[in-house]
């Protein structure tokens, strides 16, 4: 019984992890059809920001929930203005340029922070579930993710910004006909996506030692989650996070963590092959 | 099954809309037929169904080409049977020259040795000589259409299927096209889908009128184009 509880929590945690780390990428992809391969590095930057703040005496919750998103959001703004905005509509070029950006950021962070792992202690301690010791921080992550998804849904549904965003998902001309400059909308969207990635990085910072190359761990899974999920930002990301996360954890428990990861990757290939436009379908309406 | 093209109860639905409704169509050898009808009548969908551009299943009906059941075939297999297909959306290789486009098409059927000769013949027939070395992407829309027709014809198909071949062509080009189609018709069966009434009148063939996914009427061009029922279908659609 306790074991079932542990497994369930681990599955929930995995789903939350995938959803949280994919949210930023999903927004940018769902609304702008931009695949940002530097997304993992945005997450990593969020982590570094949080750790830097903590080491300078700033409250950790403040650092991870506020400072990290703002800082990385600003970075996203700069990136959009200097690189992304020249490449709209050029899907492959965007992937290549952002891959270059990811390498650049890794290089920069290595330059500034060096190549040894930095870390920060988890603010919430563990608890007992029957005879198993659980990390309490995982619960916090699940809660943050749920709150975040609800907030995103509410924002999309009930705010003016959300309406514009949903218009943007249909196309730039829709946004323009609503009276808004698509370029500005894209600029804010990309920054928002970056901010979310920073938030994810901040929240995840206490988990393990952070290295400049940590972004690599996030990008692969986030990428797979978003593409498998399809164009719908929230339902797509959530549904693929649920499927992939569940499979990952179940197989991990049954066999071996590495096999669990591989199973998740193989499942993604199968899903993509069967549903080439993702679970929530209809990606490139005008793609060639 | 005596026709060169035959459909049985051909049906195509998109969501709740029935675009092609249990159509029974037949084309005889060496016949030239025009398919006309207002927008949304289903003629282009019908065209795509018989050219393998949709993945058809048994419930969609049957399509036969010279007796062979090609219902579930894909496009390149139908082409390999000996059909030449020009789609509604122009499909040429803009980054290559006219000659290269034609050569690639000719090569598939005539082999390396025969391709050059076939290209020369078609160039003369369609008067593409001046544009041979130019990149297709640089040509006008009408010229590109002509090149595409060249790509189709250089394979010497015995069944030619053209979806809106006259779109974007100048008056002179349309006249040339009519001559070309009449010329091919001497050795091949031809189906032409188009909106342009003048063009259809010039071709002067048997005409099949589509309306709301089904065949409304069929007959020689002169009588069909003057048929009040047909006119009303067009006018009615425009008003609605």
């Amino acid at each position, binding site marked *: 019984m306790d074991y079932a509880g542990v497994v369930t929590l681990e599955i929930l945690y995995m789903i939350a992890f995938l959803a949280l780390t994919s949210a930023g990428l999903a927004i940018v992809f769902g609304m702008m059809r931009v695949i940002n391969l530097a997304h993992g590095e945005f997450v990593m930057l969020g982590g570094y920001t949080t750790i830097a703040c903590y080491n300078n005496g700033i409250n950790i919750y403040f650092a991870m929930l506020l400072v990290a998103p703002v800082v990385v959001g600003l970075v996203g703004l700069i990136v959009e203005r200097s690189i992304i905005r020249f490449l709209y509509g050029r*899907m492959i070029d965007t992937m290549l*340029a952002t891959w270059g950006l990811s390498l650049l950021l*890794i290089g920069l962070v290595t330059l500034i922070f060096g190549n040894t792992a930095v870390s920060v202690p988890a603010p919430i301690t563990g608890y007992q579930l029957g005879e198993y010791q659980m990390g309490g921080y995982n619960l916090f992550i699940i809660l943050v993710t749920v709150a975040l998804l609800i907030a995103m849904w509410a924002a999309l549904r009930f705010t003016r910004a959300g309406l514009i965003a949903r218009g943007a998902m249909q196309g730039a001309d829709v946004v323009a006909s609503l009276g808004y400059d698509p370029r500005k909308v894209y600029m804010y969207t990309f920054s928002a996506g970056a901010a979310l990635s920073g938030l994810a990085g901040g929240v995840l910072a206490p988990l393990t030692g952070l290295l400049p190359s940590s972004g690599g761990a996030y990008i692969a899974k986030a990428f797979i989650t978003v593409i498998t999920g399809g164009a719908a930002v929230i339902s797509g990301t959530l549904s693929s996070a649920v499927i992939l996360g569940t499979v990952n954890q179940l197989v991990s428990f049954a066999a071996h963590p590495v096999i669990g990861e*591989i199973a998740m990757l193989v499942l993604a*290939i199968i899903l993509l092959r069967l549903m*080439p436009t993702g679970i929530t379908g209809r990606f490139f309406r005008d793609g060639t | 099954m005596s026709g060169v093209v035959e459909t049985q109860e051909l049906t195509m639905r998109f969501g709740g809309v029935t675009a092609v409704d249990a159509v029974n169509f037949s084309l005889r050898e060496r016949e030239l037929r025009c398919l006309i009808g207002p927008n949304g009548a289903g003629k282009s969908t019908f065209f795509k169904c018989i050219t393998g551009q949709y993945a058809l299943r048994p419930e969609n009906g049957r399509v036969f080409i010279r007796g062979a059941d090609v219902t579930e075939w894909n496009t390149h297999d139908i082409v390999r049977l000996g059909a030449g297909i020009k789609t509604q959306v122009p499909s040429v*290789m803009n980054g290559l020259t006219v000659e290269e486009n034609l050569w*690639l098409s000719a090569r598939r059927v005539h082999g390396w040795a025969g391709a050059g000769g076939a290209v020369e013949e078609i160039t003369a027939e369609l008067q593409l000589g001046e544009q041979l070395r130019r990149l297709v992407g640089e040509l006008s829309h009408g010229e590109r259409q002509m090149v595409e027709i060249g790509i189709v014809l250089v394979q010497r198909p015995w069944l030619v299927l053209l979806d809106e071949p006259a779109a974007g062509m100048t008056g002179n080009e349309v006249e040339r096209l009519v001559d070309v189609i009449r010329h091919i018709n001497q050795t091949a069966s031809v189906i032409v889908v188009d909106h342009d009434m003048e063009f259809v009148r010039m071709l002067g063939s048997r005409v099949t009128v589509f309306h709301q996914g089904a065949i409304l009427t069929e007959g020689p061009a002169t009588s069909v184009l003057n048929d009040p029922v047909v006119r009303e279908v067009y006018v009615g659609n425009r008003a609605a």
Partner: protein
Amino acid sequence: MRSWPSVGQIRWGWFLLATAILLLLPLVTDTHTPTVLLIWALFALSLGMMWGYAGLLSFGHAAYFGLGAYAYAVAVINIGESTVPLILSMLVPAAVAAVVGAMMFYGRISDVYMGVITLLVTLILFKFMSATAGDAYVIGDARLGGFNGMPGFHTLNVPGYPEISLFGLPTYYVCAAVLLICYLICRWILARSFGRVLVGIRENEARCELMGYNVPAFKTAIFTVCAAMAGLAGCLFANWAEIVTPRVFSLGQAAEVLIWVIAGGLGTLIGPILGAIALGYVKLLLGEQTVIDNSLVLGAVLIIVVLGIPRGVVPALQSVWAAAERRARGRTGSGQGARRTLGASNRERT
């Protein structure tokens, strides 16, 4: 064929010059570094052929490089003589590519998704191989070794004489010869109908289909051939490094080869080769100091190339050269310069 562009033509003058340089290089410098540069050039050539001429962009071409390396190592440890392992280093990646390729191309998977799926394949291999530490993971006598890889295996030997194995100068000459031969093979493919159909597929796949060509079959074929070439490069790499680690499958390796190709020039054969040699050399130089990180440079290069020189350096230079030539001869031609790189729409189709 009168005016088909010169993709299939070999410019023998340049080729002989390159051969001469490769032959004489050992007289001026130590061959250890040039050897790996030539190997990387071969790897880049295999991707450049597929991407530049058939329009197939694989984000995980490193998978086949790695499979070639591992196939060679495992086989040579088990067999003891290197002829069969060498062949396996090409056959194993080719077989995997045939399966993956068929799955993708017959399923009409396009651009972006092909990128994702190929990325996933190399990721899976990387994760799997990294976790194979311990005695349980063996193929025959070969322990896979997990993250630390497989050291200490026989290098290539003269067929039939396992005692006479290569390292140092002979390895350099073998790599140079292989590169030159593969280059010639690529040119030969491009001059055949097969190569021209590939270009047609790159330009307009639907139209090729309408001409009656079996497009998925062509794509799978070239994908397989290029995987075999990458595998061969992997085998040579294993011989040069004398160790095989999962790093060959890594995202880093996958990114590097892509950057070499695109920086050097998409749509040419010489571009990827030069890109690999130049950037590979830069990487080795940077590796010897710690101030500027290699990632930084590669990343910056990629961004600059994508933003500024989308077709890569070699085509850009060729345009400059062709323009200068035209000016020199006072011609105002229609752009059919002697070195047309076939097709304006090289990379982007959206």
